[in-house]
């Protein structure tokens, strides 16, 4: 399987990738802006994400929420998302509606500010505050996405602070901030555009040039500080977080090699060996054999700057205390450290990763998004075609080298959630715990 890719760069710096596939009359338009929460300035945590909301509030030629209306009326799906290093916006539409999606994206890239008003900002600020309450403050364990990076990155590091932002900082965001952020980061030379699906390349290029070509290049963005960090934390960092929850849950993070490096693939496959699906080590050992965990999984943040995080996420069974679950997980990690992983585990993990990759590449939107990722971080969208090969080329030794370097006690960070008013280990059983609430 090979994903076809053609790239051009417009004179204003916009990097464009095209990936043709005429199986169905569908086309995906996907824009990544190389800006995320890492680029926020002091006192404006959450702004990159709040700004993403503002991009749906109209532009010079588009009314508030009309972007949604026009795409849905065209029979398309759309959304946007914000991450530490990037913000993306995407539409999948019937292929005869390609120009509409391009026009809408170009209109807000070129002419957002005339549509911005204080009232729209105030409304979206409230919406985002409700989003924060919904995903974080009123959700068991919801604060993990804020607490774990804070624990794993030093205070001055751009990945340290909250992606969704504090209520205080959200309240402080102004229209001036919107204008400044837009001028600095929402420029064609800080974006990549990917189009995947049913289109004729010559037509697509003409439409892209027509709609995006006139948008002026930016004046450059402030450089991020040096993101590099030592390969290990240097200690076992620990935070215990009491929460309104029924079962203890451990997030155990390891500092790991930045996304895209050869060592990243070893880290990623190590995560799959440990926590991908039911045959993974942690699920087999902690759920099936030891029966001390209700859930177990592992994942990477996929951060491309400086260093990444490999995270193990295990929820205790009723009756298993917080301390015990932490010990059980540590025991399994120590076993990997002592004995390494074996060839069967590696083969299983790579086989599942390959199926998952092929499965996701069925969707135009997924293709476009993955192409944008490699274009944004490395300027090489064609890396999408090397991913499976890079996993398949890994040897047991490669993975075990990663294990030796990164899974030791000097490179662990525990974020341990414990039921509030229940000391770790005191939860005795389903019935008793339920009654206690």
């Amino acid at each position, binding site marked *: 399987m090979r994903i076809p890719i053609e790239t051009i760069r417009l004179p204003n710096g916009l990097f464009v990738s095209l990936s043709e596939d005429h199986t169905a009359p569908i086309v995906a338009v996907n824009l990544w802006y190389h800006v995320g929460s890492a680029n926020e300035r002091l006192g404006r945590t959450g702004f990159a994400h709040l700004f993403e909301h503002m991009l749906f509030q109209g532009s010079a030629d588009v009314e508030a929420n009309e972007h949604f209306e026009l795409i849905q009326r065209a029979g398309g799906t759309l959304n946007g998302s914000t991450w530490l290093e990037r913000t993306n916006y995407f539409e999948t539409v019937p292929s005869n509606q390609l120009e509409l999606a391009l026009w809408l994206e170009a209109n807000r890239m070129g002419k957002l500010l005339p549509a911005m008003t204080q009232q729209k900002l105030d409304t979206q600020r409230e919406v985002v505050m409700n989003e924060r309450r919904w995903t974080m403050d009123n959700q068991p364990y919801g604060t993990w996405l804020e607490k774990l990076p804070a624990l794993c990155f030093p205070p001055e590091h751009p990945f340290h602070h909250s992606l969704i932002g504090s209520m205080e900082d959200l309240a402080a965001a102004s229209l001036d901030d919107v204008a400044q952020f837009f001028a600095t980061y929402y420029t064609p030379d800080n974006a990549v555009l990917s189009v995947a699906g049913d289109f004729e390349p010559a037509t697509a290029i003409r439409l892209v040039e027509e709609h995006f070509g006139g948008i002026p290049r930016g004046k450059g963005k402030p450089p991020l500080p040096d993101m590099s960090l030592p390969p290990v934390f240097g200690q076992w960092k620990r935070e215990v977080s009491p929460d309104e929850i029924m079962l203890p849950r451990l997030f155990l993070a390891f500092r790991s090699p930045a996304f895209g490096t050869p060592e990243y693939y070893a880290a990623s496959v190590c995560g799959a060996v440990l926590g991908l699906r039911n045959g993974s080590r942690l699920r*087999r050992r902690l759920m099936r054999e030891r029966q001390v965990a209700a859930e177990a999984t592992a994942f990477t943040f996929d951060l491309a700057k400086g260093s990444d995080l490999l995270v193990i996420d295990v929820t205790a069974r009723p009756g298993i205390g917080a301390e015990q679950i932490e010990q059980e997980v540590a025991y399994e990690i120590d076993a990997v450290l002592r004995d390494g992983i074996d060839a069967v585990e590696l083969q299983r993990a790579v086989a599942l990763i390959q199926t998952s990759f092929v499965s996701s590449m069925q969707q135009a939107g997924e293709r476009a998004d993955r192409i944008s990722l490699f274009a944004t971080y490395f300027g090489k969208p064609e890396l999408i075609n090397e991913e499976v090969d890079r996993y398949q080329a890994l040897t047991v030794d490669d993975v075990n080298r990663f294990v030796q370097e990164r899974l030791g006690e000097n490179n662990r960070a525990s974020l341990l959630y414990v039921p509030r008013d229940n000391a770790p280990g005191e939860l005795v059983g389903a019935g008793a715990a339920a009654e206690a609430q």
Partner: protein
Amino acid sequence: MSAPAVAKAPRPRPGPPREYQFPRFYRRRLENGLELVVAPATKLPIVTVAVVVDAGAICDPPGREGTAQLTAKLLIEGTQTSDGAELTERFERLGATIDAEADWDAAAITMTALAEHLPAAFDLLGEVLRTPAFRSREVARLKAERIAELLQLRAEPRGLADELFSRFLYQPSSRYAKPDGGDEKSVESIEREHLIAFYESRYLPGGVSIIVAGDITVDRAEELARRVFGDWQHGAPQPIIGDDLPARTQRAVHIVAKPEAPQSELRIGHVGIPRNHPDFFPVNVMNAVLGGLFNSRINLNLREAHAYTYGAFSSFDWRRQAGPFVVSTAVKSDITDAAAREVLLEIDRMRAEAISADELSLATSYLDGVFPIRFETTAAIAAALSVLVIHGLADDYYDRYRDRVRAITTEQIFQAAQRYLHPEQLQLVVVGDPAAIREPLGSLGFGPITVYDALGQPTT
């Protein structure tokens, strides 16, 4: 929605749409009654197989709710030749993902594998369906995992609101009043022999459809199915029809206490209509206008006009019998009553006057246009064919779908709202802080208020 105040630049006009057909599919039936539905789709070398069994939660024996889900999940936890760990490894070393679950109307064992590994994976699938072992150790483990899930629910406002909404909606005798996976009491009471009895009475070829979508020919799929299932015993499960009677015909407010909650999780709705209802299409489009789309009335009102919430939507849960109609949202505690009032106003407004042609065309052109995007993956095609099988829809259902959506009129929407939205029967369920919301909800005058704990036991 709102007309632009000033002349705006012209919007790009679409060219003619390229034609699209839902993937062709072919039915075959083995002599023992097992049905095979094959949809070749050769874009990528991947295949999804969905085994749909007439063994959904609606078939649970009374008092042993959760049997259907446990049975389905235990199929992939060990066969007579492989224990659970071994079986899992045999699938996963092929790169095959296997998942088993039971919803209300059917059990589904779904497998996705690269085409090159399909024959081996298909053999394993046969083993799973025909020779499950139901080892006591695995039964106990999955029961404990379900108990843990229920325990987690007590502190999870979204899931708790959904579960208790159903409980307050249906008569206690209805299967729909209890969670599809069962509750603590019913799950505790399920033993290995109950699961085996359920398996033996429901997992029979006459109640099994094997749906294959992806990079495979019909003949090859039939060959695999014959090899693996051809000599399976004959037999078919007894049809089971659940009851969907509402618990109440008058409005009531149910506050589930979560002291000091920063948000209220709201569920507002009543018993809806069954999937096979002749007015499915108008009701579906009506719901899209009311709360099904981002630009629906409810979301634009609660999120974009009032900034009460991150999102608000409505849905009909389509089941063989009447599933719930529900509006769902989460709002800051101090405006719970105001948010509920806006939802009620929107429901009333749907029934008071016809929607505009513009609103209709937004919903219909969305459902029409998005149709091909819904079926990009083998998993999505298999899921669509599962719906066809479970609800006995006609073979040309997906071919006619877009025409039927386009034919809906504002008059039909108006009638659907009048007939199938019942403001007088609405149940309002809130998981939130009683100290902050009880009084304001009382002033709303919606109906009698009861306060419950997280287990759904009344405390007032």
